[in-house]
C-alpha cells in the first residue's frame, strides 16, 4: 500500500462514501474519512465527493452541500490544484460550487435510472483517468434521478473544443444529457465530475460485472505516487 491519502467526504445523506473509500483502498491508496462539518481536509492528497443525497437533495442535487464547512476549505484547494473527483451527487456539488460548469437537472425520462451503462473514456489526460486508454469503452453503473448534463452553447463548445468531456454515454442516452455527456473535467484536469459510479465497478463479484471503474482510483494513486 502506498502512503497516498485520498479523502472521502461524508455529508449528511451521503450514501456511497464507504463504497468510494473501499475503491480507494482497493486501488492501493489510503482512504481518509472527511466530515462535512469540519473545516479540515486532514492534509489529504486528493478528495472524492461521493454519491448520495446530501441533505436529502430535496431542493436540487448538491445545492445545500456546497455550503458545508468542509467545502469552504475544498473550493480554494481545488482551484489551487488539489485533485477532486465528484461522483454523481459529488458531480452535482461540484457544479453547484461552480468548480465545474453547467448543471445537472432532472432526467429527461423523469425517472430515477439504475443500470450498467456503456460509455467511452474520451479524455485520459486528467488526474483521474490516466490509467484508461484514450476512447476506451467501459461499463460502469449509473443510478440517479438528476443527471441530465446541461450547459449553455458557449460552455458546451468550450468543453468540446478543450477536450474536457471525460466520459460520454454510448448506446441509448439514459437521461437526456447534452452531447451524451457523462462526465467532464476542468481545464487543469485535476477536477473531474461524473454521473456514473466507478466505485460500484471495482470488484468482480460485487456490483456491476467487471472492474472497469477501478481505473479512476488507480489513476489518481499513480499520479500521487509519481508526483
Amino acid at each position, binding site marked *: 500500500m502506498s502512503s497516498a491519502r485520498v479523502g472521502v467526504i461524508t455529508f449528511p445523506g451521503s*450514501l*456511497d462514501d*464507504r463504497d468510494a473509500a473501499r475503491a480507494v483502498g*482497493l486501488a492501493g491508496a489510503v482512504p481518509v474519512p472527511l466530515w462535512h462539518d469540519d473545516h479540515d481536509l486532514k492534509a489529504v492528497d486528493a478528495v472524492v465527493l461521493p*454519491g448520495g443525497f446530501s441533505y436529502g*437533495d430535496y431542493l436540487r442535487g448538491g445545492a445545500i452541500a456546497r455550503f458545508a464547512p468542509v467545502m469552504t476549505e475544498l473550493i480554494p484547494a481545488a482551484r489551487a490544484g488539489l485533485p477532486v473527483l465528484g461522483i454523481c451527487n459529488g458531480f452535482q456539488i461540484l457544479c453547484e460550487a461552480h468548480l465545474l460548469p453547467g448543471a445537472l437537472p432532472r432526467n429527461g425520462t423523469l*425517472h*430515477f435510472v439504475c443500470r450498467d451503462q456503456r460509455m467511452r473514456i474520451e479524455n485520459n489526460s486528467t488526474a483521474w483517468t490516466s490509467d484508461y486508454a484514450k476512447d476506451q469503452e467501459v461499463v460502469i453503473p449509473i443510478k440517479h434521478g438528476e443527471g441530465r448534463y446541461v450547459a449553455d452553447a458557449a460552455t458546451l463548445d468550450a468543453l468540446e473544443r478543450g477536450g474536457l468531456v471525460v466520459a460520454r454515454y454510448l448506446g441509448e442516452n439514459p437521461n437526456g444529457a447534452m452531447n451524451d455527456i457523462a462526465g467532464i473535467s476542468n481545464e487543469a484536469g485535476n477536477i473531474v465530475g461524473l454521473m456514473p459510479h466507478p466505485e460500484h465497478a471495482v470488484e468482480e*463479484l460485487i*456490483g456491476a460485472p467487471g472492474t472497469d471503474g477501478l481505473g479512476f482510483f488507480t489513476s489518481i494513486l499513480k499520479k500521487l505516487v509519481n508526483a
Partner: protein
Amino acid sequence: MSTDSVKRAEQTPDEPQPYAELGMKQDEYLRVREILGRRPTSSELAIYSVMWSEHCSYKSSKVHLRQFAAKAPASDALLVGMGENAGVVEVGDGWAVTFKIESHNHPSYVEPHQGAATGVGGIVRDIMSMGARPVAVMDTLRFGPADAPDTRRVLPGVVGGIGFYGNCLGLPNIGGEVVFDDCYIGNPLVNALCVGVLRKDQIKLATAPGPGNQVILFGARTGPDGIGGASVLASATFDEESAAKRPSVQVGDPFMEKLLIECCLELFAADVVVGIQDLGAAGVSCATTELAAKGTGGMTVRLDAVPLRDETLRPEEILMSESQERMMAVVTPANVAAFMEICRKWDVPATVIGEVTDVTPEEAARGGRLIMTWHGETIVDLPPRTAADEGPVYDRPFSEPLTQAALNEDAPDRLARPTDLRAALLQLLGAPNIASKEWVTSQYDRYVRGNTVLATPADSGMIRIADVVPGLPGDGPGPDGVTTRGIALATDGNGRYARLDPYAGAQLALAEAYRNVATGGARPLAVTNCLNFGSPEDPEVMWQFAEAVRGLADACKTLGVPVTGGNVSFYNQTGSTAINPTPVVGVLGVIDDVSHRVRPGFTEPGARVVLLGETDAEFGGSEWAHVAHGHLGGLPPAVRLESERLLAEVLVEAAASGLLSGSHDLSDGGLGVALAEACLIGGYGCRVILPGTADAFTELFSESTARALVAVRPGSWDRFAELCAKRGVPACALGETGGESLVVEEVLEIPLTELRTTYEGTLPAIFA
C-alpha cells in the same frame, strides 16, 4: 379548553365516549372501564383503541399464529424469535441477521407514492430497533391487471415511492415481485422487506428496565399524521375548532431516516442505549406501552414535552400520531449527555420525555403503571401490559367457502391445448406477470453500499455481510468483522394457488422462496411472512387464513426453517369481494463464501443444460391457464417438500463445489419460460431436447414444483450427476448452452432477439 384528566374522568363517570367511532366494540370498551375501575380519559381511550386494533393487537390472528412457535423446528440459529420487532438468526463468524416483511397496502392505494415510501421507512425502523444496520430492502407488489386504468395510477406511484425512499436512504433493493391479477383492483398489495446485520452480541430489545432511566424520543417532530381517528376524540371531547381536518396520509422523509440510521448505529456502538423501539402504527402509544410492558412495567411520560410540528395538537392526537422517522430509547441518566451529543452530531432532534419507574408488587400484578401528564395534569394512568399484551383475542368462526368444491372440480383438463408451442411460449413470455420487470427495477438503486452480490433479475438477492475496506475498519467493530459470508433472500407468494388451496398455497409460497434462495447457492435458514387476506369477520376468509397459517407452519417444520416474524394484513377487499388469499413468504439463506454464488441464467457457452426434478401435468392455477384462458380452477401443483429439501441440498453443494455456471428455478410458466429467461438473463442461447416423459406441452408449461434448471460447467457433469444420484434428485441432461437462439429440438426455435423484444417490451409499452 379543558383537558380530560384522570380526575375529571373520575368526576364524570357517565360522560358518553366515542369508542365506536374509534373502532372499539362495546365489550372492549367495557373491559377498559373494568381494567381502570372508571371510565378512561380520552387519552387512555386513544391508547386502548389503537393498541387493541386489529393492526396492533393481532386479535383475530393470534390464535392461529401461535402455531408458528408451537410447530417451530429446533434451530440453533434462532437468537430472537417471534414477538420482538423482528426475529434474529445467527449466520456464523459472530454475525447475526434480522429481517422482516410488512404490508402498507391501504395507504398505498390512497396515495401510492407516499404510502409505499412510508412502508419502506417503517420496516427499516423495525430492523434498526433490533440493533442492526439495515443493509437491503425488497418489495413484493400486487396490482390489478397491468392495463387497467387504476393500475396506471397506482403502479408508477408505488414504484416511484419505493425508489424515492429506498434510494435516498441508501439501501440497495435486491429483489421482490410484481404480480398482476383482477382480484387486486382497488386493493393493491405493497409488502416491504428489510434485512439488517449485526454482531450477535449486540442485539437490542424493546424494553425499559432500570427505574430512573430516561425515556428519549428522537427523530422527526410529531405532527398530525395519520390521525383521522383522533379528530373524532377531539371533536367529541372538545370544541369544534380542534376537529380540524387531519390527514390520513403520512409523508416520508428518507433523509431524516438516513440520519436516524447513522445516529442509531453510533448510539449502539457507544453503548448508551438500554432499550429501543421504533414508532410505527400507534406511535407514542405503542412505543411507551410496549417499552414499559417489557421493562419494569412502570413509566412516567410528560406528553407536553413531545416536540411538535403543529403546536395545536392535543394529547390524544400526539398519542395516535403516525408521524414517520421517530424512535424511542431508554437511557441511563449517566449516558443521557453522551446520547444527546451523538444526536446533535447527526442533526437528529432528541428530547427526554419521561422516566422508567419502579412499580409496587400490587401494581405489577395489575400490569404495571404508566402515567402521562399534560401540563401538570395526569391524563393517563393505566397498566401498560393491559394495553400492549392483554388485548382482546378472538377465535373467529371459519368455514370453507361454499364455492370451494366447485372451484376445485373445475380442473384445467378441459382447456384447449395450444397447437403452436412457439406462439404459446412467446405469449407467456410477454404476459405482464412473466415479462421483464426492468421498467420497475431500474428505478431502484441495487448497488449502494457496495455489497450486492446478486440482485434483479436473479432468483434471490444476495448481500455480502461485511467487507473490510483496506485502510478502514470493517462495518462491524474490530478485526473480527472479517467474513466471507453472505445472505440471500427471496420472497414469493401465489394468490391463485392459495385461492385453490390455501393450505397448499402457503406451502408452495414457502417452497418457491426456499428454492430461490438455494438457486443462488445459499442454504435456507429462516422465514418471515406477510399474510394478506380479506376480512377476518368473513368466516370464509377466516378459513383461508387458518388454512394458510396451518400450511405454512407445517411446511416450515418439515423443511426445518423457523418463522421468525411477520405481519398480518386483513380487510383487503373491495366491498364484500376479498382478494385472493395472498400469503407472501420470505426465506433467508446463508452462503459461507459469497464467491461461490451462482448467477442466474446461461452465462457461458458449452455448459450442459440440466433439468432437476420431476414433471407431471399440473396446470391448476398455472400462468398458462391464466394467460391463455383466463382460467382459475382445479388444484395447485402438488407440494413436494422432501424433494425441495433434497433439491436445495444439491444446488447448494454444487454451488460450493463450483460445478455450476448458471442456475434458475422453475416456477410460473414452467420449463419453457425458465429456458427463455435463462438465455436472456445470461446472454447465451441453448439447444435442448425435451426429456420425452410426457407430451411437449406438458414438459414445457407444467408448473410442477421442486424443479430447477442448471448449467453444469464443462467437465463437471460426472461429479454433478453423482451428487444428484446420491440424493435421488432426478437430473436430466437436456442439451448445451450456446448460440443466438433458444432451440427446443423438434418443437421450437426462437432467436434471442425475438425473445428479448417480447420479454422486455410489455411493461414499457404500458407504463412508459
